[in-house]
Protein backbone atom coordinates (compact mmCIF):
# COMPACT_ATOMS: atom_id res chain seq x y z
CA UNK A 1 0.00 0.00 0.00
CA UNK A 2 2.77 2.42 1.00
CA UNK A 3 4.72 1.62 -2.17
CA UNK A 4 1.64 2.30 -4.22
CA UNK A 5 1.18 5.74 -2.72
CA UNK A 6 4.90 6.45 -3.09
CA UNK A 7 4.62 5.56 -6.77
CA UNK A 8 1.52 7.75 -7.09
CA UNK A 9 3.29 10.71 -5.45
CA UNK A 10 6.36 10.36 -7.67
CA UNK A 11 4.19 10.12 -10.76
CA UNK A 12 2.29 13.25 -9.72
CA UNK A 13 5.55 15.14 -9.16
CA UNK A 14 6.80 14.10 -12.59
CA UNK A 15 3.59 15.30 -14.17
CA UNK A 16 3.73 18.69 -12.40
CA UNK A 17 6.21 20.07 -14.94
CA UNK A 18 3.69 19.47 -17.69
CA UNK A 19 0.96 21.46 -15.95
CA UNK A 20 1.66 24.61 -17.91
CA UNK A 21 2.33 25.06 -21.57
CA UNK A 22 5.71 26.71 -22.09
CA UNK A 23 7.37 27.80 -25.32
CA UNK A 24 10.64 29.64 -24.74
CA UNK A 25 11.45 30.15 -28.41
CA UNK A 26 11.57 33.73 -29.65
CA UNK A 27 11.78 34.49 -33.34
CA UNK A 28 14.90 36.64 -33.57
CA UNK A 29 15.51 38.73 -36.64
CA UNK A 30 18.50 40.75 -37.82
CA UNK A 31 16.74 43.30 -40.03
CA UNK A 32 18.33 44.36 -43.29
CA UNK A 33 18.34 48.12 -43.52
CA UNK A 34 16.75 49.71 -46.55
CA UNK A 35 18.21 52.58 -48.56
CA UNK A 36 18.45 55.74 -46.47
CA UNK A 37 15.94 58.46 -47.14
CA UNK A 38 17.00 61.24 -49.50
CA UNK A 39 16.16 64.51 -47.81
CA UNK A 40 16.16 67.85 -49.62
CA UNK A 41 15.65 70.98 -47.52
CA UNK A 42 14.89 74.34 -49.08
CA UNK A 43 14.73 77.57 -47.07
CA UNK A 44 14.64 81.28 -47.82
CA UNK A 45 17.84 81.49 -45.73
CA UNK A 46 19.71 79.42 -48.34
CA UNK A 47 20.43 82.55 -50.35
CA UNK A 48 20.78 84.97 -47.41
CA UNK A 49 24.19 84.58 -45.82
CA UNK A 50 24.01 86.01 -42.26
CA UNK A 51 20.42 87.09 -42.76
CA UNK A 52 19.70 90.24 -40.74
CA UNK A 53 16.80 89.94 -38.27
CA UNK A 54 15.81 93.60 -38.27
CA UNK A 55 12.42 93.97 -36.58
CA UNK A 56 11.67 90.31 -37.37
CA UNK A 57 12.76 87.66 -39.83
CA UNK A 58 10.32 85.16 -41.32
CA UNK A 59 11.96 81.80 -42.02
CA UNK A 60 10.39 79.50 -44.60
CA UNK A 61 11.31 75.89 -44.98
CA UNK A 62 10.23 73.09 -47.25
CA UNK A 63 11.45 69.51 -47.04
CA UNK A 64 11.17 66.84 -49.70
CA UNK A 65 11.51 63.21 -48.57
CA UNK A 66 12.29 60.40 -50.96
CA UNK A 67 12.01 56.89 -49.60
CA UNK A 68 11.09 58.08 -46.11
CA UNK A 69 8.64 59.84 -43.85
CA UNK A 70 9.05 63.08 -41.91
CA UNK A 71 8.10 62.64 -38.25
CA UNK A 72 8.61 66.26 -37.18
CA UNK A 73 11.03 69.20 -37.40
CA UNK A 74 12.49 71.59 -34.83
CA UNK A 75 14.04 75.04 -35.20
CA UNK A 76 16.65 75.67 -32.50
CA UNK A 77 18.47 78.82 -31.54
CA UNK A 78 21.12 78.55 -28.82
CA UNK A 79 19.72 75.14 -27.84
CA UNK A 80 16.23 76.58 -27.34
CA UNK A 81 13.38 75.33 -29.44
CA UNK A 82 11.86 78.20 -31.42
CA UNK A 83 9.42 76.23 -33.48
CA UNK A 84 8.26 72.67 -34.07
CA UNK A 85 6.02 71.14 -36.69
CA UNK A 86 5.19 67.80 -38.35
CA UNK A 87 4.45 69.48 -41.67
CA UNK A 88 6.76 69.15 -44.67
CA UNK A 89 6.62 72.93 -45.16
CA UNK A 90 6.03 75.90 -42.90
CA UNK A 91 7.30 79.20 -41.60
CA UNK A 92 8.06 80.94 -38.33
CA UNK A 93 9.49 84.27 -37.13
CA UNK A 94 12.79 85.09 -35.50
CA UNK A 95 12.91 88.26 -33.35
CA UNK A 96 15.93 90.41 -32.35
CA UNK A 97 15.45 89.86 -28.61
CA UNK A 98 16.04 86.11 -29.03
CA UNK A 99 19.82 86.45 -29.37
CA UNK A 100 22.64 88.92 -30.11
CA UNK A 101 25.32 89.29 -32.76
CA UNK A 102 25.80 86.40 -35.18
CA UNK A 103 24.07 83.21 -34.00
CA UNK A 104 23.28 79.88 -35.62
CA UNK A 105 19.75 78.78 -36.35
CA UNK A 106 19.42 75.01 -36.67
CA UNK A 107 16.62 73.29 -38.56
CA UNK A 108 16.54 69.62 -37.47
CA UNK A 109 14.36 67.22 -39.43
CA UNK A 110 13.52 63.91 -37.75
CA UNK A 111 12.57 61.28 -40.31
CA UNK A 112 12.35 57.53 -40.73
CA UNK A 113 15.61 55.68 -40.38
CA UNK A 114 14.68 52.90 -42.85
CA UNK A 115 16.55 50.37 -40.72
CA UNK A 116 13.43 48.14 -40.95
CA UNK A 117 13.64 47.43 -37.23
CA UNK A 118 10.62 47.30 -34.94
CA UNK A 119 11.49 50.75 -33.59
CA UNK A 120 11.69 52.10 -37.13
CA UNK A 121 8.38 50.56 -38.16
CA UNK A 122 6.45 52.11 -35.28
CA UNK A 123 8.20 55.46 -35.49
CA UNK A 124 10.30 55.15 -32.31
CA UNK A 125 13.60 55.44 -34.17
CA UNK A 126 14.54 58.46 -36.27
CA UNK A 127 17.40 59.78 -38.31
CA UNK A 128 18.13 63.51 -38.12
CA UNK A 129 18.95 65.73 -41.07
CA UNK A 130 20.18 69.10 -39.85
CA UNK A 131 20.73 72.45 -41.54
CA UNK A 132 22.31 75.50 -39.90
CA UNK A 133 22.11 79.13 -40.91
CA UNK A 134 24.00 82.13 -39.55
CA UNK A 135 21.63 84.89 -38.43
CA UNK A 136 22.63 88.49 -37.70
CA UNK A 137 20.75 89.78 -34.67
CA UNK A 138 22.56 93.15 -34.73
CA UNK A 139 24.91 94.74 -32.22
CA UNK A 140 22.31 96.45 -30.08
CA UNK A 141 19.87 93.62 -29.67
CA UNK A 142 20.19 91.15 -26.86
CA UNK A 143 18.34 88.70 -24.72
Amino acid at each position, binding site marked *: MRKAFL*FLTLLSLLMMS*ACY*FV*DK*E*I*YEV*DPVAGDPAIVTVVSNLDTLPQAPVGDSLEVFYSVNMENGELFFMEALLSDEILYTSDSIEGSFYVYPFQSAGIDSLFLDFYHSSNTNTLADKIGY*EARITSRSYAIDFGEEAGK
Partner: protein
Amino acid sequence: MKRYLSYIYLGLFLTLLLPGLRAQNMGITVSGGLASQSMDDMKYLQEYILGTYPVEGKITSSFPPFATASINLMKQGFAYLHFGGGYTYSTTGGKSSYADPTGSIITEMDLSSHRLGAFLTYTIWEREHIDIALNGRVDLNLTTVEISSGVNVLGLINRIYNQYRSLGPSVSGGLECMYKFENLAVGILGGYLVDIPGDLSKTDGDDPLTDPNDSERVLTANWTGWHVGIKTRFWLNY
Protein backbone atom coordinates in the same frame (compact mmCIF):
# COMPACT_ATOMS: atom_id res chain seq x y z
CA MET B 1 -24.37 24.07 -17.75
CA LYS B 2 -25.25 23.33 -14.13
CA ARG B 3 -27.83 20.89 -15.53
CA TYR B 4 -25.13 18.78 -17.21
CA LEU B 5 -23.14 18.64 -13.98
CA SER B 6 -26.27 17.63 -12.06
CA TYR B 7 -26.95 14.77 -14.50
CA ILE B 8 -23.39 13.52 -14.16
CA TYR B 9 -23.50 13.46 -10.39
CA LEU B 10 -27.01 12.05 -10.21
CA GLY B 11 -25.97 9.22 -12.51
CA LEU B 12 -22.87 8.53 -10.47
CA PHE B 13 -24.79 8.63 -7.20
CA LEU B 14 -27.53 6.27 -8.40
CA THR B 15 -24.99 3.83 -9.79
CA LEU B 16 -23.11 3.74 -6.51
CA LEU B 17 -26.37 2.87 -4.74
CA LEU B 18 -26.90 -0.30 -6.74
CA PRO B 19 -27.15 -3.12 -4.13
CA GLY B 20 -24.77 -5.51 -5.87
CA LEU B 21 -22.01 -2.97 -5.86
CA ARG B 22 -21.59 -1.95 -2.26
CA ALA B 23 -19.21 -4.70 -1.33
CA GLN B 24 -16.95 -4.16 -4.30
CA ASN B 25 -13.50 -2.66 -4.27
CA MET B 26 -12.77 1.03 -4.48
CA GLY B 27 -9.77 2.22 -6.34
CA ILE B 28 -7.91 5.21 -7.70
CA THR B 29 -6.76 5.64 -11.26
CA VAL B 30 -4.14 8.13 -12.32
CA SER B 31 -3.27 8.70 -15.93
CA GLY B 32 -1.13 11.08 -17.88
CA GLY B 33 -0.21 11.58 -21.46
CA LEU B 34 -0.55 13.70 -24.55
CA ALA B 35 -3.68 15.12 -26.11
CA SER B 36 -4.23 16.84 -29.43
CA GLN B 37 -6.85 19.55 -29.86
CA SER B 38 -8.55 21.08 -32.85
CA MET B 39 -8.49 24.71 -31.56
CA ASP B 40 -9.57 26.07 -34.96
CA ASP B 41 -10.79 29.39 -33.55
CA MET B 42 -7.69 29.88 -31.41
CA LYS B 43 -5.42 29.23 -34.42
CA TYR B 44 -7.49 31.71 -36.40
CA LEU B 45 -7.19 34.31 -33.63
CA GLN B 46 -3.44 33.69 -33.39
CA GLU B 47 -3.05 34.30 -37.14
CA TYR B 48 -5.10 37.47 -36.84
CA ILE B 49 -2.96 38.81 -33.98
CA LEU B 50 0.22 38.01 -35.93
CA GLY B 51 -1.21 40.00 -38.85
CA THR B 52 -1.47 43.09 -36.64
CA TYR B 53 2.29 43.12 -35.99
CA PRO B 54 4.00 46.08 -37.68
CA VAL B 55 6.86 43.72 -38.54
CA GLU B 56 6.97 40.18 -39.88
CA GLY B 57 6.66 37.96 -36.82
CA LYS B 58 6.42 34.22 -36.65
CA ILE B 59 4.23 31.67 -34.92
CA THR B 60 6.60 29.46 -32.97
CA SER B 61 3.91 27.19 -31.54
CA SER B 62 0.30 26.74 -32.47
CA PHE B 63 -1.57 24.59 -29.98
CA PRO B 64 0.50 21.41 -30.31
CA PRO B 65 -0.47 18.15 -28.61
CA PHE B 66 0.40 18.70 -24.97
CA ALA B 67 -0.05 17.30 -21.49
CA THR B 68 -3.20 15.79 -20.11
CA ALA B 69 -3.65 14.14 -16.73
CA SER B 70 -6.52 12.58 -14.89
CA ILE B 71 -7.25 11.35 -11.40
CA ASN B 72 -10.36 9.35 -10.62
CA LEU B 73 -12.12 7.42 -7.92
CA MET B 74 -13.25 4.07 -9.23
CA LYS B 75 -15.48 1.28 -8.08
CA GLN B 76 -15.60 -2.23 -9.41
CA GLY B 77 -19.13 -3.00 -10.52
CA PHE B 78 -20.23 -6.16 -12.17
CA ALA B 79 -17.61 -8.66 -13.25
CA TYR B 80 -16.31 -6.68 -16.21
CA LEU B 81 -17.45 -3.22 -15.27
CA HIS B 82 -15.65 -0.39 -13.50
CA PHE B 83 -17.16 3.00 -13.04
CA GLY B 84 -16.35 6.19 -11.24
CA GLY B 85 -15.72 9.85 -11.58
CA GLY B 86 -12.97 12.36 -11.30
CA TYR B 87 -10.98 15.25 -12.63
CA THR B 88 -9.06 15.67 -15.88
CA TYR B 89 -6.68 18.48 -16.76
CA SER B 90 -5.35 19.32 -20.19
CA THR B 91 -3.25 22.21 -21.38
CA THR B 92 -1.85 23.64 -24.56
CA GLY B 93 -0.94 27.01 -25.95
CA GLY B 94 0.36 29.14 -28.73
CA LYS B 95 3.06 31.72 -29.14
CA SER B 96 4.04 34.22 -31.78
CA SER B 97 6.96 36.54 -31.51
CA TYR B 98 9.41 38.90 -33.13
CA ALA B 99 12.63 40.29 -31.73
CA ASP B 100 15.38 42.49 -33.13
CA PRO B 101 18.05 44.66 -31.47
CA THR B 102 15.55 47.51 -30.97
CA GLY B 103 12.77 45.53 -29.29
CA SER B 104 10.34 42.67 -29.35
CA ILE B 105 6.70 41.68 -29.61
CA ILE B 106 5.56 38.50 -27.90
CA THR B 107 2.02 37.13 -27.83
CA GLU B 108 1.27 34.10 -25.69
CA MET B 109 -1.96 32.16 -25.49
CA ASP B 110 -2.27 29.65 -22.64
CA LEU B 111 -5.23 27.32 -22.49
CA SER B 112 -6.31 24.96 -19.73
CA SER B 113 -9.18 22.53 -19.60
CA HIS B 114 -10.61 21.42 -16.25
CA ARG B 115 -13.03 18.54 -16.70
CA LEU B 116 -15.16 16.95 -14.03
CA GLY B 117 -17.14 13.89 -14.95
CA ALA B 118 -18.01 10.22 -14.76
CA PHE B 119 -16.76 7.19 -16.66
CA LEU B 120 -17.52 3.56 -17.35
CA THR B 121 -14.91 0.93 -18.22
CA TYR B 122 -15.97 -2.36 -19.70
CA THR B 123 -13.45 -5.20 -19.94
CA ILE B 124 -13.67 -6.93 -23.32
CA TRP B 125 -10.72 -9.30 -22.98
CA GLU B 126 -9.05 -10.64 -19.85
CA ARG B 127 -6.24 -13.00 -18.95
CA GLU B 128 -4.40 -13.63 -15.69
CA HIS B 129 -2.27 -10.47 -15.86
CA ILE B 130 -3.63 -8.50 -18.80
CA ASP B 131 -6.99 -7.02 -19.57
CA ILE B 132 -8.22 -4.85 -22.42
CA ALA B 133 -11.17 -2.58 -21.80
CA LEU B 134 -13.35 0.00 -23.51
CA ASN B 135 -13.72 3.30 -21.76
CA GLY B 136 -16.45 5.93 -22.04
CA ARG B 137 -16.62 9.23 -20.25
CA VAL B 138 -18.84 12.30 -19.90
CA ASP B 139 -17.47 15.55 -18.50
CA LEU B 140 -18.30 19.13 -17.84
CA ASN B 141 -15.45 21.15 -19.29
CA LEU B 142 -14.31 24.50 -17.91
CA THR B 143 -11.83 26.12 -20.27
CA THR B 144 -9.64 29.09 -19.40
CA VAL B 145 -7.81 31.08 -22.06
CA GLU B 146 -5.14 33.61 -21.14
CA ILE B 147 -3.89 35.92 -23.86
CA SER B 148 -0.97 38.23 -23.16
CA SER B 149 0.83 40.52 -25.55
CA GLY B 150 3.94 42.46 -24.71
CA VAL B 151 5.69 45.09 -26.80
CA ASN B 152 9.13 46.30 -25.76
CA VAL B 153 10.65 49.02 -27.92
CA LEU B 154 13.89 50.68 -26.85
CA GLY B 155 13.04 49.91 -23.24
CA LEU B 156 9.48 51.23 -23.40
CA ILE B 157 7.19 48.38 -22.41
CA ASN B 158 3.48 47.95 -23.00
CA ARG B 159 1.63 44.80 -21.94
CA ILE B 160 -1.95 43.65 -22.48
CA TYR B 161 -3.44 40.70 -20.61
CA ASN B 162 -6.91 39.21 -20.96
CA GLN B 163 -8.47 36.08 -19.53
CA TYR B 164 -11.49 34.27 -20.94
CA ARG B 165 -13.42 31.15 -20.01
CA SER B 166 -16.10 28.87 -21.33
CA LEU B 167 -18.17 25.98 -20.07
CA GLY B 168 -19.48 23.05 -22.06
CA PRO B 169 -19.91 19.29 -22.08
CA SER B 170 -17.51 16.80 -23.58
CA VAL B 171 -17.65 13.06 -24.21
CA SER B 172 -14.80 10.68 -24.87
CA GLY B 173 -14.26 7.05 -25.68
CA GLY B 174 -11.21 4.88 -25.88
CA LEU B 175 -9.38 1.68 -25.29
CA GLU B 176 -7.01 0.72 -22.49
CA CYS B 177 -4.71 -2.21 -21.94
CA MET B 178 -3.63 -2.89 -18.35
CA TYR B 179 -1.02 -5.25 -16.92
CA LYS B 180 -2.18 -6.37 -13.50
CA PHE B 181 -0.08 -7.00 -10.43
CA GLU B 182 -1.57 -8.02 -7.10
CA ASN B 183 -3.26 -4.77 -6.17
CA LEU B 184 -1.90 -2.52 -8.83
CA ALA B 185 -2.29 -2.30 -12.57
CA VAL B 186 -0.32 -0.25 -15.08
CA GLY B 187 -1.00 0.16 -18.73
CA ILE B 188 -1.57 2.31 -21.74
CA LEU B 189 -4.65 4.02 -23.03
CA GLY B 190 -5.80 5.92 -26.05
CA GLY B 191 -9.01 7.55 -27.12
CA TYR B 192 -10.84 10.37 -28.76
CA LEU B 193 -12.59 13.28 -27.09
CA VAL B 194 -15.45 15.22 -28.61
CA ASP B 195 -15.82 18.65 -27.09
CA ILE B 196 -18.93 20.79 -27.42
CA PRO B 197 -17.32 24.08 -26.46
CA GLY B 198 -19.16 27.00 -24.99
CA ASP B 199 -18.66 30.59 -26.08
CA LEU B 200 -15.60 32.27 -24.61
CA SER B 201 -16.26 35.33 -22.47
CA LYS B 202 -14.06 37.56 -20.38
CA THR B 203 -13.69 36.47 -16.77
CA ASP B 204 -14.20 40.06 -15.62
CA GLY B 205 -17.24 41.54 -17.26
CA ASP B 206 -18.59 38.63 -19.35
CA ASP B 207 -17.71 40.37 -22.64
CA PRO B 208 -17.64 37.69 -25.35
CA LEU B 209 -14.45 37.00 -27.29
CA THR B 210 -15.72 37.75 -30.78
CA ASP B 211 -14.22 37.15 -34.19
CA PRO B 212 -12.24 40.32 -35.06
CA ASN B 213 -13.70 40.11 -38.59
CA ASP B 214 -17.27 39.23 -37.59
CA SER B 215 -18.55 40.72 -34.36
CA GLU B 216 -21.59 38.40 -34.41
CA ARG B 217 -19.47 35.26 -34.05
CA VAL B 218 -18.12 34.31 -30.64
CA LEU B 219 -14.91 32.28 -30.60
CA THR B 220 -14.53 28.95 -28.84
CA ALA B 221 -11.68 26.77 -27.59
CA ASN B 222 -12.32 23.28 -28.93
CA TRP B 223 -10.52 20.40 -27.21
CA THR B 224 -11.74 17.75 -29.66
CA GLY B 225 -8.90 15.39 -30.46
CA TRP B 226 -6.95 12.22 -29.78
CA HIS B 227 -5.21 11.36 -26.55
CA VAL B 228 -2.72 8.68 -25.56
CA GLY B 229 -1.04 8.01 -22.27
CA ILE B 230 -0.14 5.73 -19.43
CA LYS B 231 -2.41 4.73 -16.61
CA THR B 232 -2.11 3.23 -13.15
CA ARG B 233 -4.85 1.71 -11.05
CA PHE B 234 -4.70 1.06 -7.30
CA TRP B 235 -7.22 -0.85 -5.23
CA LEU B 236 -7.76 0.85 -1.88
CA ASN B 237 -9.60 -1.73 0.22
CA TYR B 238 -7.57 -4.87 -0.24
